[in-house]
């Protein structure tokens, strides 16, 4: 059995009592239905909070870009314009829902839903804290890669079904970009998996420590490079600048979602912003220590879980800021440059990193660079004592 939010909650007396109470009240074993109920509520909360974070992501994007361009940005709705995304949502719902006359209607309806489904399915393994993760699947990393590839299909079908040349080009670019960049991303994930010796997120995070010295990014030179390969790769996979070719507004109007209006367009936008959160969360869990708190403050208690969540969210939002920052700083790549970056640079580097990490684990017993330096310092102090 995997560690899930239910198995965490069952450690508490109250929850176990509740299970017993319901079982005796109805005279049957209620653990199955209660497990389902708890999962349902937890998933409901996570999805809704993530939808709000995705909405706030659009606000953050506009506000940060405004800062970088010496503008003010949205400031009318709510304090500092922070409710702008709600106003946008209401506007999206009220808009007329236009389907192009020659569009493939069935796929036109399916495409945005597929995008959103893929992103929300990947939330199941995002480790917010040790207890409050929906499930620590023991193949969590592979699962994350698998369900997030649904987004690529959604983007491609969105481009195809709207029966417009701009959309088609954007969809083709999106799909080819996503399946190409999956390779360096997967390889650099595997380098970390080799170090931790497991595919589940709790195993990967627990192999790190709260202090930066124990993070995988500073574990050895290969993972240090691997983090940047991973980050560039996920930027391309989420179609963010400088890899936003699928929606390149200067050449393709708006790419794959040119023909989408109203809520369907909002689904695409929401999927993009939540996916950025998901990949930033994965990056912080894999390379930056995830939910680990220095000195394990709080321990296993509720306070500990809150601190862990704070640690995870701080790292994730810092990466989120970097993603937005990059978008408003770098110009867009050309298509041929995009493929050259992936196949001629990132993939060989990621392969080299994977082999390097494997050799490091084999020859140095998986000790981190910091540990080796400290060992050397200690031995040199001891041996140098005679001078």
């Amino acid at each position, binding site marked *: 059995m995997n560690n899930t939010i239910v198995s965490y909650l069952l450690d508490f007396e109250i929850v176990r009592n509740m299970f017993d109470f319901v079982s005796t009240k109805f005279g049957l074993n209620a653990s199955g239905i209660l497990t389902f109920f708890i999962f349902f509520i937890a998933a409901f909360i996570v999805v809704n909070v993530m939808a709000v974070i995705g909405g706030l992501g659009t606000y953050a994007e506009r506000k940060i870009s405004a800062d970088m361009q010496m503008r003010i940005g949205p400031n009318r709705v709510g304090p500092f314009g922070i409710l702008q995304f709600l106003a946008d949502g209401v506007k999206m719902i009220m808009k007329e829902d236009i389907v192009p006359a020659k569009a*493939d209607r069935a796929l036109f309806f399916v495409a945005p839903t597929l995008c959103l489904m893929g992103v929300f399915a990947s939330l199941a393994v995002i480790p917010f804290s040790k207890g409050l993760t929906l499930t620590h699947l*023991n193949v969590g990393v592979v*699962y994350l890669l698998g369900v997030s590839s649904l987004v690529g299909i959604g983007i*491609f*079908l969105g481009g195809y079904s709207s029966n417009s040349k701009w959309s088609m080009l954007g969809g083709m670019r999106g799909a080819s970009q996503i*399946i190409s960049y999956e390779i360096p991303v997967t390889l650099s994930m595997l380098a970390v998996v080799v170090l931790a010796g497991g595919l589940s997120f709790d195993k990967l995070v627990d192999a790190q420590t709260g202090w930066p010295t124990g993070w995988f990014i500073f574990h050895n030179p290969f993972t240090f490079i691997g983090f940047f390969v991973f980050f560039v790769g996920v930027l391309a996979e989420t179609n963010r600048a400088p890899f936003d070719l699928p929606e390149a507004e200067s050449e393709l109007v708006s790419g794959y979602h040119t023909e989408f209006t109203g809520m369907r367009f909002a689904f695409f936008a929401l999927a993009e912003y939540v996916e950025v959160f998901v990949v930033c969360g994965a990056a912080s869990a894999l390379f930056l220590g995830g939910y680990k708190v220095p000195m394990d403050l709080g321990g296993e208690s509720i306070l500990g879980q809150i601190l862990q969540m704070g640690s995870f969210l701080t790292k994730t939002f810092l990466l989120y800021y970097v993603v937005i920052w990059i978008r408003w700083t770098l110009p867009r790549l050309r298509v041929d440059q995009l493929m050259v970056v992936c196949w001629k640079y990132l993939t060989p580097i990621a392969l080299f990193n994977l082999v390097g990490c494997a050799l490091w684990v084999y020859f140095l017993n998986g000790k981190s660079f910091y540990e080796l330096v400290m060992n050397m310092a200690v031995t040199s102090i001891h041996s140098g004592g005679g001078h």
Partner: protein
Amino acid sequence: MFVKFLFLISTLLTLAGAIGVVAVKNIMHACVFLLASLIGVAGLYVTLGADFVSAVQLVVYVGGVVILMIFAVMLTGGDKADFFNKFGFEKVSAMGNKKTYLVGSAVLIVFTLSVGKIIFNIIDLKSSKDPQSYVSTVEQLGHLLLTDHVLAFEASSVVLLGALIGAAIIARPNRGVK
């Protein structure tokens, strides 16, 4: 009960998707139905306790194969006149020729041997001893792939390499023609 529900949903998804693939005329819709069917199969693997296989099913089939199929649909088709030469024969014959038969039979032999090795082992395993008990199937798969079934592992990697080189050769622009 949980698992039974999952089994029911996965089975329905698999069957409905499979029926949809053969029932619809639009090839793009068939691809989307195939996607549903493949996700259903991943769910079936979960109910069997094969967690790693189901995750790989998602990565390879949902993420890779379906997108490649859609790409193939986009890049082929079109003008039918291109497929035939001036005598009215197909340029690339669907039934193959001597060379392809030779290569095909060689590949068939290698595959029969390697698959047979796996299947005989499984039959043997059931009769003689209990399968080793692992918490997760990942370690088990890794051990078996690099020890007992290393021939199948290597054969499949050679096939994939061949496919990669073949694709590069087909896609390469003709050097002789200017």
